[in-house]
């Protein structure tokens, strides 16, 4: 045992350059992996916190009535003793200002202690956590949303009437936490202490107020279990139990996607680095084979020899983990800056002990596992080889050698699953990577043959380069696969970004993203509204008619009888409600597409309906909606609009960008049919600064009290900024992968140059100049880089298409400029790297050759 250990150290000391490369290579892959892993833990915790902030609690019980004493008892019994609860009542009400102006508001009547997580950001007082000591709970004070000041005509210190009671405005709420079930509110909020709710006399019989029981669990509680138990106990359909994850924001979900993607990408860098190290080790071991044979012939057992190298790998792995940890530690703040703004507060970046342990574990195990095939060769070594002339150690591996790659593949799959929260994503990614590697490998082998044939009769440098590539398939394909995967990744990530941008419309000027969404605009209000807005310099965009339709028959069958394939719930009440919902839809009429739309199949509707034709009315149907009704091109449905039954035929299936925030409809009818039917209009307001938004809303509310206004800006902007930062972080990771790929290339090149040093020098002796030889190296690796890039970028197009199909609902659009740039860059880098690696050998004096060895 100790012999093996000492031998391992000896090997390290005597092969410093190999060890250095091995360690650097591995460390490179580990850096990305580690950074993301520790970032992920930080991120996960942040996301959890964030969703808790949104709900303001761990759990919430919500109903339009008080809980019965029996229900309350049940709840108490199910909660751990240290659990805290707080009650908040929210409802809509008409509030009047001192001058009599009234407005619909949402009243939040809260107990002291709300919210458990997060706090209020008030204009005057700053941060307030709603604790007992707050004056709000002691006196009849109110905190209001800033826009209410003008809408109610009530300023600081003035009184507003809630029900029978007057509340004095003591502050303005810039930002609030808790009970945020939706991304946008329909009415501005007013916060009062719950103690004063009874006085208002508003909660009489028949009220529609929501009672919320918010729960904070002590640390270590099993939230999922408690939630399940509560849901079971509170079986009345009137009561809903929410966890903070369920109530979570869309941003949280996107963050989770980001985190998963990041870790997967970082895994690729790790994979490549491991591959490179494995290759290095393989070459290293081959050189040592003779020595090992000697050892064995001197009496050492094969297992001792194998043990030596296992020790060596362990030591090297540990040595790789250290710089990786340091680099990750330095790199983490950079990454956290990148995702700033996605979450409200900073993410604490910390390198947890778990990550440290993981680093060592992965470094060592990865080294072992990838070395398995090489070590296996060692164990099959026959010292007789020593006695043979010109012994060529390391013959072709037998067929069984492939089996020894399986542990590596399985281990990698395990790591993939571990690092991502979603099985689906992990497996998808793993399969994509495996298939890509496989395709690259096969194409690489084929390509080598093609190259060999193509340049078989060319001039010497070209021919030698081709031959060198073709006759060393293992090193050539290693370099090829590594580079190819790096290129694949590097071009894939921006494709996603590009697709997402197209989807959301990021490429278009920011002004296209609406700030306010107006709807329920009556036909007779349109002119006045348009004029008013133009006067204010904020023109109305996307003015679109909005017609309500009901589904009567689908393909000749009464709608009621249509079996719905998506059984969303087993509750018959729920089912009935869902069916009711789907029976109706909003439609419009248009003969052209918006930017956010795309015809998947079929043709555009005919511009104007011909009343003399006997054909049914033409409609364009959104694809997923069509699927849910089992509709295809040519199918007919009967729609009732304003009491009129209209038979229509599906002329095209359309895809709609959900993130475009533009008015989109599931059904678009051809113009000339329903223009006179009763309808409302919707529109968007785009170019508004935050300051102006309040003023505009004010004007609209007073002039057109029946028009509804929805503030989409915040939601839209958040999503966009998330996407931007997502892709930045992803690209950094992808860059690491390319770096790992190039490092492999460097190793491969160096290896080759070293192996071929005799021949390179021979060529010098025979009369080749340094330029000739340098060109040879350039051509060889330039070809490798070029081919790898071409295949890599093609694969990236394919993979991005597949991913777009499954994850992003077919938002595939390809940006061709990027792959060209990457190909060029990779070719140049490959050439430079190879040249640099071979430089030492190239500069060697050919006299070396003549020395007796």
């Amino acid at each position, binding site marked *: 045992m100790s012999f093996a250990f000492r031998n391992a150290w000896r090997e390290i000391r005597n092969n410093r350059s190999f060890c250095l490369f091995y360690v650097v290579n591995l460390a490179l892959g580990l850096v990305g992996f580690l950074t993301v892993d520790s970032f992920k833990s930080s991120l996960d915790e942040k996301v959890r916190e964030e969703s808790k902030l949104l709900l303001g609690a761990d759990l919430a019980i919500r109903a339009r009535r008080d809980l019965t004493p029996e229900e309350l008892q049940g709840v108490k019994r199910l909660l751990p003793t240290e659990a805290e609860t707080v009650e908040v009542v929210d409802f809509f009400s008409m509030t009047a200002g001192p001058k009599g102006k009234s407005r619909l508001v949402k009243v939040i009547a809260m107990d002291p202690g709300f919210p458990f997580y997060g706090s209020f950001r008030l204009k005057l007082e700053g941060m307030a956590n709603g604790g007992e000591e707050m004056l709000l709970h002691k006196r009849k004070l109110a905190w209001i949303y800033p826009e209410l000041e003008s809408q109610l005509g009530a300023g600081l210190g003035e009184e507003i009437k809630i029900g029978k009671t007057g509340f004095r405005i003591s502050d303005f709420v810039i930002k609030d936490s808790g009970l945020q079930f939706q991304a946008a509110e329909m009415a501005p909020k007013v916060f009062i202490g719950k103690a004063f709710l009874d006085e208002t006399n508003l909660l009489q019989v028949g009220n529609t107020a929501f009672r919320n029981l918010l729960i904070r669990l002590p640390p270590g509680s099993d939230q999922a279990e408690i939630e399940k138990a509560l849901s079971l106990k509170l079986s009345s359909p009137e009561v809903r139990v929410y966890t903070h994850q369920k109530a979570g924001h869309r941003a949280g979900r996107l963050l989770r996607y980001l985190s998963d993607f990041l870790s997967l990408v970082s895994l690729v860098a790790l994979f490549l680095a491991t591959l490179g190290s494995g290759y290095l080790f393989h070459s290293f071991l081959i050189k040592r084979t003779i020595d090992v044979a000697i050892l064995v012939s001197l009496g050492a057992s094969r297992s001792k020899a194998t043990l030596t190298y296992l020790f060596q790998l362990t030591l090297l792995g540990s040595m790789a983990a250290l710089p990786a940890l340091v680099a990750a530690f330095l790199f983490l703040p950079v990454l956290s800056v990148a995702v700033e703004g996605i979450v409200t507060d900073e993410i604490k970046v910390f390198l947890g002990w778990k990550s440290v342990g993981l680093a060592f574990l992965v470094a060592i195990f990865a080294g072992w596992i990838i070395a398995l095939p090489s070590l296996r060769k060692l164990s099959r070594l026959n010292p007789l080889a020593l006695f043979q002339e010109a012994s060529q150690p390391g013959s072709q591996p037998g067929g069984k050698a492939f089996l020894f790659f399986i542990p590596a593949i399985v281990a990698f799959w395990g790591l993939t699953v571990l690092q991502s929260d979603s099985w689906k994503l992990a497996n998808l990614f793993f399969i994509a990577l495996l298939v890509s590697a496989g395709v690259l490998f096969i194409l690489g082998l084929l390509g080598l043959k093609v190259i060999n044939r193509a340049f078989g009769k060319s001039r010497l440098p070209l*021919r*030698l380069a081709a031959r060198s590539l073709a*006759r060393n398939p293992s090193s050539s394909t290693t370099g090829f696969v590594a580079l190819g995967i790096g290129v694949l990744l590097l071009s894939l990530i921006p494709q996603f970004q590009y697709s997402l941008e197209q989807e959301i419309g990021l490429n278009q000027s920011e002004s296209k993203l609406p700030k306010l969404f107006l709807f329920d605009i009556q036909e007779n209000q349109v002119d006045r509204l348009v004029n008013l807005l133009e006067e204010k310099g904020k023109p109305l965009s996307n003015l679109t008619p909005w017609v309500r339709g009901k589904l009567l028959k689908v393909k000749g069958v009464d709608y009621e009888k249509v079996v719905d394939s998506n059984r969303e719930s087993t509750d018959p009440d729920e089912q009935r409600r869902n069916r009711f919902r789907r029976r109706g839809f909003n439609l419009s009429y248009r003969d052209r597409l918006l930017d956010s739309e795309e015809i998947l199949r079929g043709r555009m509707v005919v511009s104007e309906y011909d009343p003399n034709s006997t054909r049914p009315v033409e409609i364009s149907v959104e694809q997923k909606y069509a699927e849910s009704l089992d509709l295809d091109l040519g199918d007919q449905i009967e729609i009732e609009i304003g009491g009129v039954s209209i038979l229509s035929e599906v002329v095209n299936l359309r895809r709609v960008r959900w993130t475009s925030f533009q008015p989109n409809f599931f059904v678009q009818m051809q113009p000339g049919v329903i223009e006179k039917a009763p309808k409302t209009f919707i529109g968007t307001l785009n170019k508004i600064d935050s300051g102006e938004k309040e003023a505009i809303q004010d004007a609209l509310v007073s002039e057109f009290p029946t028009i509804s206004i929805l503030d989409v800006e915040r939601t839209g902007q958040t999503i966009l900024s998330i996407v931007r930062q997502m892709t930045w972080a992803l690209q950094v990771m992808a860059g690491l992968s390319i770096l790992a790929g190039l490092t492999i290339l460097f190793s491969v090149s160096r290896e080759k140059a070293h192996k071929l040093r005799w021949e390179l020098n*021979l060529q*010098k002796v*025979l009369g080749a*100049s340094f330029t000739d030889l340098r060109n040879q190296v350039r051509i060889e690796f330039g070809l490798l880089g070029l081919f790898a890039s071409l295949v890599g970028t093609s694969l990236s197009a394919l993979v991005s298409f597949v991913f777009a199909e499954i994850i992003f609902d077919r938002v595939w659009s390809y940006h061709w400029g990027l792959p060209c740039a990457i190909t060029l860059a990779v070719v140049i880098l490959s050439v430079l790297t190879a040249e640099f690696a071979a430089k030492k050998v190239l500069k060697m004096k050919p006299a070396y*050759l*003549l020395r007796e*060895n």
Partner: protein
Amino acid sequence: MNPLLRLKQISKSFHQGTQRIEVLNRLDLTVQQGEIISILGQSGSGKSTLLSLLAGLDHPESGTVEVNGEDLAKLSQDQLSKFRSQNLGIVFQQYHLMSNLTAVENVGVPLELQGSRNFAEPARMALKQVGLSNRLAHFPSQLSGGECQRVALARAMVSEPDLILADEPSGNLDQKTGREIMDLLFGLCRKREQSLILVTHNLELAKSCDRTLLLADGRLKPMDSNDQD
């Protein structure tokens, strides 16, 4: 007639750590066109150094190396490369064939390096002369030791150089094969009146040459039949 090769007062030394080892010490050598000479010497006597100088792969510290009247020290790197491909043929002990080229391609390398596109025909001829017409498309890994050395021979001959340097060409071969190779080498040189400098430690082989020189103490001495090793 001008000698093909003339070395005048060549000195060359190496540094090993802090020691300075003199390998060649004011060495003189003159070789006429068509002469076949052998240079004998113990291991470490400086044979390789001498060969390097002869091949223009290295420069002496003092003295001159003239080939066909040209001082090698005055040539640029490019000119030296050209010189080597045109005027020199080297046969190594370890054959040193290019593993990724076939036999005929290996033989054609010097011609290609000179810029000639038409190397296949001369290469084939050269291989025919060494008796390997049936091995043209084989890679070195597919050839035996003797066959490899023949290919090396053919390569050394293919551009019809004036001077051939052979460094223990039969050193890695068994006696019979070695004998065959040497016969081939001598035969070809004589036929074409090419000069051959054979570096060896084999006395037998040395005796087949026109002249035998002994490399000792950094200088070359003619060896008469009385000198024994």
